[in-house]
């Protein structure tokens, strides 16, 4: 019994032994108090939250050695061993800021990052679909941002005085060869990839990461969506065709398929067209998407796109409209992309992928047949991780293989072929050094080897960003970029060196209350551009040169007016280059001095509709008039376009969509084609390159069938 009593008494008394009071103050690196910090002894309930002045105080019954911990969002955990041997212990806690995604400055020079998950984006993936005039085309929407030049008859991206092939597209880090639909000469093409496939887009107009090679002017990096969350069927009935898509989702994966058929014939029957179509464009497309989560946080993605399209038209002679030539094109396109991302441990992650592009064009020009095919394989592995709290490293290797062949069968009796097989091996490494949440430096370098030239090149790149205030920052970027010459040029001269550019960019940005102001200035120098020796297109050298410089402004506000979101972009561009057939330095035909866009979106809750318009304006484009002695000195009239769109949701699962480009019906002229021979008066006659039709009217009905009716296709519009 004695023992029992002793034990009981020990138990009872043990709970009322010495108490220790722990107090102190929590401050940050600047000595400012951090209220709300959770200060406590490890593995006990004993602790307190710091008050407004950073002070804290609590009592503990713990004895001996213990760990004092302090935690608060945005700071690193503070741990200090304490010896609970006095009645009162005072601990001064100084918290160190973590380099957090939320607070840290990001490099904005040249970059427009759009990611729906991120909070500081100034251009969202959903914006692409809802921009009037873009008709859900990625390039169309990006053309309303500064740094781009609207080239109406092309529809492609032209960035800062660069040709359209200088802007490359990457999906999940993997390069895409030819990201645009095949179209007739001088009719705008659309991107092959629909915007709603992507959760994020990063559009860079220069100074981008060393991860992206083979891009001279711009990198458009698209991040495809992760696993689909719900099983659903989408049906689209369009004025130019229709599509059906089905998505099946399960716990750790999803699969989706889509079939689309487009035929512009019924539409062209209704609206007068500038083009003399024999068979208007018709295309059939199948898309497959597969996602599977692997292990704890791994994700495997697969995407496949198969497209078959064809059209034929008559090309009329400029001198004699009665003389016409048949132009018939059939295009087959395949793009396969598999990628994998996973973390290796808490600090490191790996992502990699394999992409395959195949493009085949079969063109018949009257009696001549041109068969052209391009195949590309890109394999890449990238490791990312932190070397320390303030230093992050990204490094990787990649191989890009490109195979091109072109055969021309003249009148079916003589042939002429070119081909090449290019292999580029590259490695890159890049470090991010965070001095604080306010200041970051990114230094990287890229090493590339090309089998055709047998040359290796090193491209250093660096950038930095500094927060000048709570909402403003300055960013600077410099880099060297290279890209192999276009396939039609390399096939003629396989020894052609890569074309090169240097970018120098300075940017100021201020983001406050959903309002963004941005101003950017840049200088770009081109070297080793491909040039025709003595005007001979079969004698190619790398002696071309050029430059581009400009100032750009961007203002976006989705705060001041309720339910209204609008942005305004202005770009000034001064560029000249000497390349291809240019006899001397001149401004190329695609470059315009002033580009302006105003995009307005208004959601009207009472009629459950989003109404929007886009106004674009560019000054005249240069063109070359062979009747004059000077080169590229002509100027077309200015370009202007007002496009409108309305999306109406009568029911949760139903969307009606109407859009119309160029509602004012302005007769925009993109340039002039000149006849190759003179007429009776000794002059070269010309014909204006116009819009295929004054307006493009698009109607769509989108239906979504799913178990819960709250899902609709709005995000895809």
């Amino acid at each position, binding site marked *: 019994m004695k023992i029992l009593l002793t034990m009981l008494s020990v138990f009872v008394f043990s709970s009322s032994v010495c108490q220790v009071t722990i107090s102190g103050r929590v401050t940050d690196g600047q000595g400012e108090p951090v209220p709300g910090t959770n200060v406590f002894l*490890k593995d006990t309930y004993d602790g307190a*939250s710091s008050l407004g002045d950073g002070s804290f105080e609590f009592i503990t019954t713990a004895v001996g050695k213990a760990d004092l911990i302090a935690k608060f969002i945005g700071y690193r955990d503070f741990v200090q061993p304490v010896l609970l041997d006095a009645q009162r212990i005072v601990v001064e806690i100084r918290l160190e800021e973590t380099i957090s995604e939320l607070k840290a400055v990001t490099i904005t020079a040249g970059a427009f990052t759009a990611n729906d998950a991120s909070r500081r984006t100034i251009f969202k993936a959903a914006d692409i679909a809802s921009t009037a005039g873009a008709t859900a085309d990625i390039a169309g929407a990006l053309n309303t941002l500064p740094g781009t030049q609207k080239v109406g008859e092309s529809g492609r991206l032209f960035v800062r005085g660069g040709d359209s092939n200088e802007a490359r597209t990457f999906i999940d880090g993997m390069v895409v060869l030819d990201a645009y639909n095949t179209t007739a000469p001088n009719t705008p093409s659309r991107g092959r990839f629909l915007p709603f496939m992507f959760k994020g887009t990063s559009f860079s107009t220069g100074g981008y990461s060393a991860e992206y090679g083979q891009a001279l002017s711009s990198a458009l990096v698209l991040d495809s969506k992760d696993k689909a969350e719900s099983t659903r069927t989408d049906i689209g009935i369009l004025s130019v065709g229709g599509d059906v898509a089905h998505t099946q989702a399960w716990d750790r994966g999803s699969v989706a398929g889509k079939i689309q058929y487009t035929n512009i014939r019924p539409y062209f029957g209704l609206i007068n067209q500038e083009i003399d179509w024999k068979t208007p464009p018709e295309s059939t497309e199948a898309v497959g998407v597969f996602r599977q989560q692997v292990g704890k946080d791994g994700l495997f993605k697969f995407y496949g796109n198969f497209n078959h399209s064809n059209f034929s038209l008559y090309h009329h002679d400029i001198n004699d409209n009665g003389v016409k030539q048949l132009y018939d094109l059939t295009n087959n396109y395949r793009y396969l992309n598999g990628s994998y991302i996973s973390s290796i441990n808490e600090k490191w992650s790996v992502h990699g992928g394999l992409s395959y592009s195949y493009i085949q064009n079969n063109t018949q020009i009257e009696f001549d047949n041109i068969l052209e095919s391009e195949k590309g394989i890109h394999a890449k592995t990238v490791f990312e991780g932190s070397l320390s709290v303030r230093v992050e490293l990204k490094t990787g290797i990649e191989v890009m293989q490109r195979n091109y062949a072109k055969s021309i069968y003249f009148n079916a009796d003589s042939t002429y072929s070119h081909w090449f097989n290019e292999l580029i091996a590259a490695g890159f490494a890049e470090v991010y050094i965070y001095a604080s949440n306010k200041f970051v430096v990114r230094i990287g370098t890229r090493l590339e080897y090309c089998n055709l030239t047998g040359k290796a090149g090193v491209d250093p790149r660096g950038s930095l960003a500094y927060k000048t205030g709570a909402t403003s920052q300055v960013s600077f970027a410099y880099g060297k970029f290279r890209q192999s010459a276009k396939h039609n040029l390399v096939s003629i001269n396989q020894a052609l060196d890569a074309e090169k550019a240097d970018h120098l960019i300075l940017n100021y940005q201020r983001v406050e209350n959903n309002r963004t102001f941005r101003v950017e200035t840049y200088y770009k120098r081109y070297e080793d551009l491909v040039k025709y020796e003595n005007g001979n297109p079969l004698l190619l050298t790398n002696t071309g040169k050029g430059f581009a410089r400009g100032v750009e402004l961007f203002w976006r506000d989705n705060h001041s007016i309720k339910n209204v979101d609008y942005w305004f972009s202005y770009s000034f561009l001064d560029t000249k280059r000497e390349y291809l057939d240019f006899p001397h330095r001149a401004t190329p035909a695609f470059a315009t001095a002033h580009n302006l866009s105003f995009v307005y979106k208004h959601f009207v809750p009472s009629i459950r509709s989003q109404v929007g318009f886009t106004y674009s304006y560019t000054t005249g484009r240069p063109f070359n008039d062979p009747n004059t002695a000077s080169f590229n000195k002509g100027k077309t009239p200015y370009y202007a376009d007002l496009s409108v769109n309305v999306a109406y949701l009568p029911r949760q699962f139903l969307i009606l969509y109407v859009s119309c480009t160029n509602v004012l019906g302005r007769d925009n002229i993109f340039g002039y084609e000149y006849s190759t021979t003179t007429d009776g008066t000794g002059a070269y006659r010309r014909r204006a390159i116009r819009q295929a039709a004054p307006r493009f009217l698009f109607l769509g009905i989108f239906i979504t069938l799913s178990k819960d009716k709250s899902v609709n296709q709005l995000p895809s519009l």
Partner: protein
Amino acid sequence: MKKVNIISILSATLLLVAHSLLATDIQYIEAMQKNIHVVYTAQSMAELQEAVNALQRIGAAEKNKWEPHYYASFGYIMMASREQDGAKKDSYLDQAMAGIEKAKTINGNDSEVVALEGFVQMMRITVDPGTRGPQYSGLAMQTFGKASAMNPDNPRALVLKAQMQFGTSKFFGSPATDACETLDLAVTKFEASASTNPLAPQWGREMATALQHECN
């Protein structure tokens, strides 16, 4: 004597073990109840932060209890609902999600925890309704459905779902029939709800009462 001794030692040990177990349990429950009460009734951000901190301390000490993480997450959701700044709102919701993940690893995929996850998704919409609405509304509805499938008697999954349905019917100007049906079911489940766990979630009744006015 020896016999007695052994028995007394044994019984004393048993008593001690039982006592200390009971004592820690009581201590746990009391500490939890105090802070849960604050989370339910807090009038200010500072009060909420303090309760959340206390819950996180308990969670860090009690490695096998899911409730502290659950209520800390609930507290962060309440903080997010009071916050105007979108970025801060998101950071509170990130904290809430971290707590939900911890609760899940301890308690598996519990219906209450899943319903709370749906609540986070619902709150995400308020940061940027135009952009996030279409994506997160579907996601939240699905998560509420998942929570109900795991436990059809969970009234919170139902009342949150009703809230979402009210939102959509308002947007489309359609009658709130679906929402009211879900709400009626939620109210029935609230009335029938009984748990042996003194720390079982109790919130949501007031939300249901407030919504009922929209149906009458």
